[in-house]
């Protein structure tokens, strides 16, 4: 070893961890150099999170050894890890919404006066000190629930820094962030590295990995399958290693052949759950055989828009026309009967009944139709079984059986249940909200192909997605939504910069 070789902050050797029925980590070697941003990538279930949970002490390894700064260590729990300077920002924030920022950051290491009184003043000073040192501005007295997700994540990072972490693990940190917030986070991470911190960045978003990391470790099915240097690799190479075969990152589609207008939204208004106007006069037309993408930073009315169109939220004004039928006031059941299918963004809450079987989930919403029920009363079990078997095969839903509860399937396969159910109803209009959120690359590829195939068969598709890449690669036209209004309708090949500008209220609409 030459004298100039950078020291290793973390060295994990031969880590093996088995859960009942699955080896999550199989003799994994993982090395992170001090002062680098190291990306750990892999599909869902590849074992990334397990490996990091071992490092953070949340999971105990069966075999293997861990060295921190070159010294072997025993990590029996998060407290040991914290003591060794390891901090973790979890994918699901470990924050208490009703507590203030200060209370959340201090929790477990609270400054006190006298016989244990919580010292608010000291807490405030400590946070001001961290803000000064790392440039992470936060109001210590703000209630966590009132902060946007980006600032909540910042509070998580400050919390980890307050505990003296030198090695920061971030588990899918951009999953919940808007593009702007992601950009800010990357700035923060670069600054942290400058102050001597080491960062482990878990992700399956390849573009981000290429943008932020120095080196990359790729995992697949519990094994490390590749070590890459970021500046010498590209998206295609990482994706191939992750999936184990060449993957189509670009969607292969022919130009659309739009038919007549089949779905018309006119001056639609609606309120959010909190009763404030979320849609302020949205109008657009949707033709048969085309995909209209809705691009926008999350929280600009997209969710409310699809909910109104799907009949699960009341419009406060405007009209929705399906053909020449006014369906504005239809509820979820009548919308469905009229030929509008809906892939909701909240897969687990609104799309599936998790405790139901795959088969039952595949007929949800159609359980009253003559095909599946006798006089709307008694289910035709044989017909349901045949139907489920057919869709499981056609949509490549990986499940032990059609009787398995949806809860036990991976996110990608859960999503395929919904996609299969909605597409199989032969809809005239398909509303697809975040159709590939949290789904692995293989399933994304599949779902994208099915959406395009559906378009080619003449369905009118409205696609809402927080991933600008997804909107751009699938859509034939792109409507940009900002603060409850469609600010412009762009062609499908509109440049990313222009869309980004429109999404944040800049730029001018096309004439």
């Amino acid at each position: 070893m030459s004298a100039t070789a950078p020291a290793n902050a973390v060295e994990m050797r031969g880590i093996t961890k088995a859960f009942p029925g699955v080896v999550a980590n199989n003799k994994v070697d993982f090395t992170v150099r001090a002062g680098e941003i190291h990306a750990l990538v892999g599909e869902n279930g590849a074992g990334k999170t397990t490996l990091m949970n071992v490092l953070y002490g949340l999971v105990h390894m069966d075999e293997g050894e861990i060295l921190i700064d070159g010294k072997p260590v025993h990590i029996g729990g998060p407290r040991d890890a914290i003591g060794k300077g390891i901090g973790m920002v979890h994918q699901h924030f470990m924050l208490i919404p009703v507590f203030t920022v200060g209370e959340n950051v201090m929790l477990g290491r609270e400054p006190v006066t006298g016989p244990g009184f919580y010292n608010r003043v000291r807490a405030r000073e400590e946070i001001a000190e961290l803000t000064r040192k790392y440039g992470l501005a936060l109001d210590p007295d703000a209630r966590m629930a009132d902060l946007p997700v980006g600032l909540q994540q910042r509070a998580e990072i400050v919390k980890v820094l307050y505990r003296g972490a030198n090695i920061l693990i971030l588990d899918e940190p951009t999953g919940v962030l808007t593009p702007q917030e992601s950009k800010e986070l990357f700035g923060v991470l670069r600054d942290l590295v400058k102050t001597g911190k080491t960062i482990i960045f878990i992700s399956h978003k390849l573009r981000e990995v290429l943008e932020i990391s120095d080196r990359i470790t790729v995992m697949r099915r519990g094994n490390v399958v590749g070590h890459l240097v970021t500046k010498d690799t590209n998206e295609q190479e990482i994706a191939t290693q992750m999936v184990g075969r060449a993957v189509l990152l670009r969607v292969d589609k022919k130009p659309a052949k739009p038919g007549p207008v089949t779905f018309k939204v006119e001056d639609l208004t609606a309120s959010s759950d909190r009763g404030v106007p979320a849609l302020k006069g949205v109008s657009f037309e949707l033709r048969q055989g085309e995909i209209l993408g809705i691009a926008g930073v999350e929280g600009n009315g997209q969710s409310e828009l699809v909910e109104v169109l799907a009949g699960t939220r009341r419009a406060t004004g405007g009209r929705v026309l399906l053909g020449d039928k006014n369906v504005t006031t239809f509820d979820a059941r009548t919308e469905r009967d009229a030929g509008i299918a809906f892939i909701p963004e909240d897969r687990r809450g609104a799309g599936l009944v998790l405790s139901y079987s795959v088969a039952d989930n595949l007929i949800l919403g159609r359980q009253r139709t003559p095909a599946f029920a006798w006089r709307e009363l008694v289910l035709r079990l044989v017909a349901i079984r045949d139907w489920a078997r057919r869709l499981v095969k056609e949509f490549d839903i990986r499940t032990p059986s059609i009787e398995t509860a949806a809860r036990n399937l991976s996110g990608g396969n859960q999503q395929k249940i919904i996609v299969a159910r909605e597409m199989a109803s032969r809809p005239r209009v398909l509303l697809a909200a975040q159709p590939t959120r949290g789904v692995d690359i293989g399933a994304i590829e599949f779902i994208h192909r099915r959406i395009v195939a559906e378009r080619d068969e003449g369905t009118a598709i409205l696609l809402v997605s927080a991933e600008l890449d997804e909107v751009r690669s699938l859509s034939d036209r792109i409507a940009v939504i900002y603060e409850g209004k469609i600010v412009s309708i762009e062609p499908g090949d509109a440049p990313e910069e222009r869309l980004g500008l429109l999404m944040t209220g800049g730029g001018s609409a096309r004439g």
Partner: protein
Amino acid sequence: MSVVSEILHLLVTASLWNQVLAAAVLLLLPALGGVISERSGVVNIAMEGMMLTGAFFAVVADLGLHNPWLATLVAMAAGGLMALIHAVVSIRFRADQIVSGIAINIFAAGLTVFLVNRIYGIQDVGHASYSELLPSLNIPVLEQIPFIGHVFFQQNVIVYVALVLLVLVHVVLFRTRLGLRIRAVGEHPQAADTAGINVYAIRYGAVITSGLLSGLAGAFLAIGVSNTFVPNMTDGRGYIALAAMIFGKWTPFGAFVACLIFGLGEAIYANNSIIHVSPYLLSMLPYLLTLIVLAGVVGRSNPPAADGIPYVAGSE
């Protein structure tokens, strides 16, 4: 005189409010226990049973030891022991906390009746002599204040203790490190755990504390307010305390306000001889108030986010 003016006359007498405060304290002690337990994330509907157990053992100990103070400690220990059962079942074994609570209430009712028969061979315990009761204590000088003096400063010693506890519980929950941790555990145990807080220890402590307070209320009932044990003498007070806790949005002072309202209902019933309404109707008053309150006079209130959810370390 009409019923309304009879009640209005009653409302301006100091002795009524003296009774209101005493009745409210009987509810406040278990309610405070409930607040502590549920703030830590363990649903506790077993205050009724813990209070009843406390009442029984207070009388047994008082008859045996001839010392109301020691008897009170025994009552608290008995309540704490019942709470320990609830804690083990719901924290260690992660059973349904409502079911556990109901089981304890039924168990306590059966156990006390059984023991009364077993020990004394009769339906009730007979009368402890007056000298062995928890005494009333008139605060010098302050008791001279017109109206206020009679209401606040001519009370049983437990009333003063309860009012001190009210302030203490509030301060601990909302001003101290311990309180911050209790609330963190009740809102988001995973977050507390990753911050190095022992979730289980906090929950055990909180549930047992709720048992001590309910036991204390039982002692006050059996050897303070009255001087005997009769089966089921708590008469649903543990449940009313539960309602008071919810009415008070899981805060000590909020619960106290609710206890005063319910206490008013009880005190009016206690004076039924001077009101020309069926006493049966009046006896319904506290319970009727509970229903009205729970049906939404307070509006939706938010319990601690992890209330009633067992914690499994390492889960998400």
